[in-house]
């Protein structure tokens, strides 16, 4: 079959980071080619080079036999590269037809009638259930997604890049999108499909390219690559190596197995779309939610803390039934939560390190009982020393600290409340190795002191090092639980990939 796009030995560096190193990618006419990899694998960098957003440092891009150098997204568009991003980049308050044609006319005047007719034809040919005069925001999300695809295709596109198009769609909508993709495939469009949902990869893709840490791992026929092998390729461990890995020393499960659970949840679900799940953690236990991105691991802990709206289920603290419908309820019960999105959910950027540290404890103490300046400074000093936070002073705004130190400040905020149960969602993401180890050690020390910790990390080794029990998630549901002997990398990956256990 004919190649519509060939990328050879693409390299791209950003200051201090090598984002892509000798990555190759080929797209054939009329195929769906999945591009997979964990966070930071280089997928989005590669896509941005394909679409002309970034310029490559080295390598070749060949479209239909010609070597091409994109200087801008407009360049790429003219060569027939169309892109649909995860978030819909259309104008919700314009009509469907306007959205299809916006920014494409070279004339000062618009022929509305012609525009509507063209839109109708295109929508009909793709079977998209929308009217040209309808306001875009009145269409369901999936239809909006399809309209942005239609817009891309209408611009004479031979290469269609779909960057996580399904993440906000429900199952039925995904099927609609897939049938549209099949339709386009039969018309000879080459489709690059990026997603975190492996089931979807297998459902629609012909071939799969795996990236990891900016390197090209391989290109495979989807039909000849079992799912657990794909997972191991994404995570970077051959299964044979894994099974031979030495068992890590675990903090004796015997110490807590007999004790009552400190926190229990039954049938808990949230508006963020996590399916009802049961969960329990004992005093001094460190457990973790593990799964690929989008598996629902963060949504689960957010449901426990009521960070997202809780839609059902029961929770118990130390055997007593409790209602947690707002984060403050969880805090009052002695639960702490370090959010995954440090910038969006964690730090109060303009406030000082001191205010950021005392915030949670101050809220617990009450509106009418502010800490004295001296007391607040003493707290801040204590934790800056204890966690070795590098800051010019306690009055420095937290935003001017490095990512790792910001994370330590948020950690300090929760340690200061002396929680009985601490939830840490990706506490080590984007942090240098030294700080990572410090945080891992801290978690184990907290557990020794009797604090229960739920730990989430994208790095499987880190999870195995710190957790004594892992809850495995896939497609927003718990699919398995591993502890003791089963806690090996290969077992974990088998369950993640759906090999069953």
């Amino acid at each position, binding site marked *: 079959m004919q190649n519509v796009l060939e990328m050879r030995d693409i390299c791209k560096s950003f200051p201090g980071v090598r984002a892509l190193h000798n990555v190759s990618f080929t797209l054939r006419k009329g195929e769906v080619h999945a591009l997979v990899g964990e966070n930071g694998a280089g997928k989005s960098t590669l896509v941005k080079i394909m679409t002309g957003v970034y310029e490559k440092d080295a390598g070749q891009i060949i479209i239909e036999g010609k070597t091409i150098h994109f200087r801008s997204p407009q360049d790429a568009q003219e060569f027939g590269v169309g892109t649909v991003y995860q978030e819909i980049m259309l104008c919700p308050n314009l009509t469907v037809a306007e959205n299809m044609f916006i920014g494409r006319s070279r004339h000062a005047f618009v022929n509305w009638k012609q525009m509507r007719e063209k839109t109708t034809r295109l929508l009909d040919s793709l079977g998209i259930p929308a009217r040209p005069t309808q306001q875009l925001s009145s269409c369901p999300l999936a239809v909006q997604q399809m309209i942005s695809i239609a817009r891309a295709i209408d611009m004479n596109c031979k290469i269609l890049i779909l960057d996580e198009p399904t993440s906000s769609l429900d199952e039925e909508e995904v099927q609609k999108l897939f049938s549209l993709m099949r339709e386009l495939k039969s018309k000879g469009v080459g489709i690059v499909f990026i997603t975190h949902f492996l089931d979807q990869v297998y459902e629609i893709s012909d071939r799969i390219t795996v990236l990891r840490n900016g390197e090209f791992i391989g290109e495979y026929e989807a039909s000849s690559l079992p799912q657990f092998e794909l997972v191991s390729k994404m995570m970077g461990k051959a299964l044979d190596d894994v099974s031979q890995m030495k068992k890590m020393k675990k903090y004796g499960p015997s110490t807590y197995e007999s004790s009552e659970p400190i926190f229990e949840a039954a049938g808990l679900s949230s508006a963020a779309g996590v399916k009802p799940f049961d969960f329990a953690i004992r005093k001094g236990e460190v457990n973790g939610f593990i799964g690929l991105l989008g598996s629902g691991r963060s949504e689960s802990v957010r449901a426990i803390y009521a960070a997202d709206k809780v839609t059902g289920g029961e929770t118990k603290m130390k055997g007593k039934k409790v209602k947690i419908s707002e*984060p403050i309820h969880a805090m009052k019960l002695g639960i702490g939560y370090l959010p995954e999105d440090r910038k969006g959910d964690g730090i109060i950027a303009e406030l000082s390190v001191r205010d950021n540290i005392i915030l949670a404890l101050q809220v617990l103490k009450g509106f*009418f009982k502010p800490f004295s300046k001296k007391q607040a400074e003493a707290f801040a000093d204590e934790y800056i020393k204890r966690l070795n936070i590098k800051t010019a002073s306690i009055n420095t705004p937290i935003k001017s600290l490095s990512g790792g130190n910001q994370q330590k400040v948020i950690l300090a905020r929760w340690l200061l409340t002396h929680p009985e149960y601490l939830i840490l969602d990706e506490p080590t993401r984007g942090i240098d190795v030294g700080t990572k180890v410090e945080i891992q050690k801290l978690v184990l020390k907290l557990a020794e002191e009797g604090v229960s910790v739920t730990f989430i990390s994208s790095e499987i080794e880190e999870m195995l090092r710190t957790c004594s029990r892992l809850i495995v998630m896939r497609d927003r549901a718990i699919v398995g639980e591993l502890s003791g002997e089963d806690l090996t990398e290969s077992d974990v990956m088998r369950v993640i990939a759906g090999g069953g256990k």
Partner: protein
Amino acid sequence: MTMAKIKAHGFHQVVLPLSVLLILILINLIKGADYFSISIINGALYGNIPNILFGASELVILSIGMTLVTSSSGGQDISVGVAATITSSVFVRLVLNAGQITWMTILLAFLASCAIGILIGAFNGTLVAIFNVQPMVATLILYTAGRSIAFLIDGKLSPILANNFTNQIGSVIPGIPIQTPIILTFVFIVLFVIFLKTTNLKLYSETVGINPKAARLNGIDPVRIKLLTYMILGICTAAAGFIAVTKAGRHDSVNLLKYSEMDAILAVAIGGNALSGGKFSISGSIIGAYTIEVLNRTLLRLEVDPETIKAFKAAFIIILIVISSSVVREFLAKGTKWVRARIGGAEQIQAAGEADAAVISNSDISEKK
């Protein structure tokens, strides 16, 4: 960091309004050296300074409340002047309806007008906090309707407060050498500062203004805090309306505190506060409010035609805002560096550079540890 530096950090925000204030005073002194002179008329102090403090009373109080809602909701309430007209119309109505006026009736009527102020604040706050209406749009409703409502409460044009008590509140109480509105403003500021010191209002509203999502995850209810700040602003409007109407001696529902909302917003901005919310400095806003009053009076003193005074004021404010913008500040910082390099010679720069390098290598070492 040394103590001096830390203090300078908070001080930085009020440097600009303070220096503007100084420049204005300087202009006044050039115009006439008797600027600071104070005379005693009927046992009370009069002169430029007392007049400024007297004239700025309502604006100072309004700008305090405006600072709070700006911080928590990242927007401004443009109905404050109108809201003050409504609260003061309630006050006037209650005072006039009372058979015999005593200090007690005045106090009760004032408290009732405060309650109305809180209600108005709750109304605006509900639109902003619960229905997520942009503050300026939400308060536009009352801005449009408010003066008519005040007129309805008045029942007629400009009811007159002809009694000794309100006259004394609006001017001087015999035996006290300072005009009453000045005292009331200071009392208000003191009470407000005490409230700030004994609660977490500042921390909470800054947190909500900077990052409402994170605020919620730390147990702060952004809706409640926004509502609270609007209700406090309601009390501020009641206090400002009270002072304004006692000063005027009659309730003119059309012109009372006209355009004061814009001046209050301006005071917040001149005070170095971001109108997009978050961190705030009350002292900045208060200085900002007095600065505006001084500016008004300076223009009058310079015999600028009252008809054109607004244009001059606008020009002055544009200069002020541009100077305080980060673009100019960075440019000035670069400029001073360049000038220093030319005048101070290479030696100093080199020494400074070495000191910098030493600091960096030190932190490098500690980083590696």
